[in-house]
């Protein structure tokens, strides 16, 4: 049904307003004259009055609730809303903290890693092959830390880092304790040098201030 254009002179509109007893005398006279002339308008006015009666009877059938309980529920929600407000403040602080962490200079981080790895390479030439694999992987992992760090919710070790480094450490026949690599802001990965063979440990510290990168642990 298309919407009718506003027409204040529509006789049916006057009839509708007459139901609400708000017609000024002049408009009342015009309506009466129109009703006297048009049987169709009289029918329409009668139907509009019938609709109004039905709607008003329908109105008498209002909803019933336990109003005291309803008011109490509103109060409870408002009070819990205050608590949620506090939690929201904590959440905002955490988000800001996460954003700070995201401001890692990935290039600088990678460069530091490279520098330390190269230094380790000079001291341990037998591990050249291992390090050639580890460097790009470490760089990639650094980027992963930089990009995804603030959005991570879990404190579990990064699957990416485990997948990336464990085979390398295993291939080098290093003790398992040296293979622990965690990209986690809250947990500090530990690498325990257990013997001369475990001189290379990969340690990523994720707590703020952000990573000092790979640490080389000197032979025991």
């Amino acid at each position: 049904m298309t919407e009718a254009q506003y027409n204040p002179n529509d006789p049916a509109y006057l009839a509708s307003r007459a139901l609400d007893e708000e017609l000024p005398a002049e408009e009342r006279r015009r309506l009466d004259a129109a009703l006297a002339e048009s049987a169709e308008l009289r029918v329409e006015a009668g139907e509009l009055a019938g609709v109004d009666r039905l709607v008003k009877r329908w109105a008498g059938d209002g909803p019933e609730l336990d109003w005291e309980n309803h008011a109490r529920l509103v109060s409870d929600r408002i009070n819990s809303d205050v608590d949620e407000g506090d939690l929201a403040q904590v959440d905002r602080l955490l988000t800001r903290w996460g954003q700070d962490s995201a401001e890692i200079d990935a290039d600088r981080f990678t460069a530091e890693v490279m520098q330390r790895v190269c230094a380790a390479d000079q001291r341990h030439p037998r591990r050249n092959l291992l390090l050639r694999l580890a460097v790009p992987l470490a760089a990639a992992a650094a980027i992963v830390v930089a990009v995804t760090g603030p959005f991570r919710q879990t404190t579990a070790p990064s699957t990416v880092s485990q997948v990336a480094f464990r085979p390398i450490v295993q291939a080098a026949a290093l003790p398992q304790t040296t293979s622990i690599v965690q990209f986690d802001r809250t947990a500090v990965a530990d690498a325990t040098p257990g013997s001369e063979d475990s001189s290379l440990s990969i340690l990523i510290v994720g707590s703020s201030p952000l990573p000092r990168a790979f640490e080389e642990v000197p032979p025991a």
Partner: protein
Amino acid sequence: MEQTKAAETSLVERARGGDSAAFADLVRAYQRRAVSVAYRLLGNVEDAGDVSQDAFVRAYRCLEQLDDPARFGSWLLRIVSNLALNYRRARSTRAAASLDDDLALPSNIRNPSTVQRSVGLAPDEDGVLPAELRGGIQAAMEQLPEKQRLALILFSVEGLPQKEVAEILECTVELVKWNVFQARKKLKESLREYL
């Protein structure tokens, strides 16, 4: 009337200052009307209760945005109306997405005049409306455009003055009258069998 407005203004001011007891008084004063408007828009008491609670919580959060504390009632009903219409739209979307939609809806909701015609209901002038007729009116109301439905509910059902309805709908009083007229015209067609 002026006294009531003054008391309402005082309650709003106190609630703004963090007096939750003052806001609880506002809730008690307006909850019936809020639930009633939501019920007329949603046709379901439980949903109406939930929506009106949401409206009060939202009103409490946004109390600072209320320009004139004396108009708390109109402002609250605008929130109730908006939330109820949003809720209704979301509900319609969910219903439309359901593959069982046609089977789940009673036929009198899809086409109120069908059942009414076959059952041959007539309104009892003195008693309560028969349930089917009540449902038929509710369904016919739901077919009205939102502005017309709101205007008719607030003015004819809730009995609010046209000026207040205009405030709630953020339109002119003339437009309220016109929307009420248009709503009546449409209901005249969809409820013809009852007239």
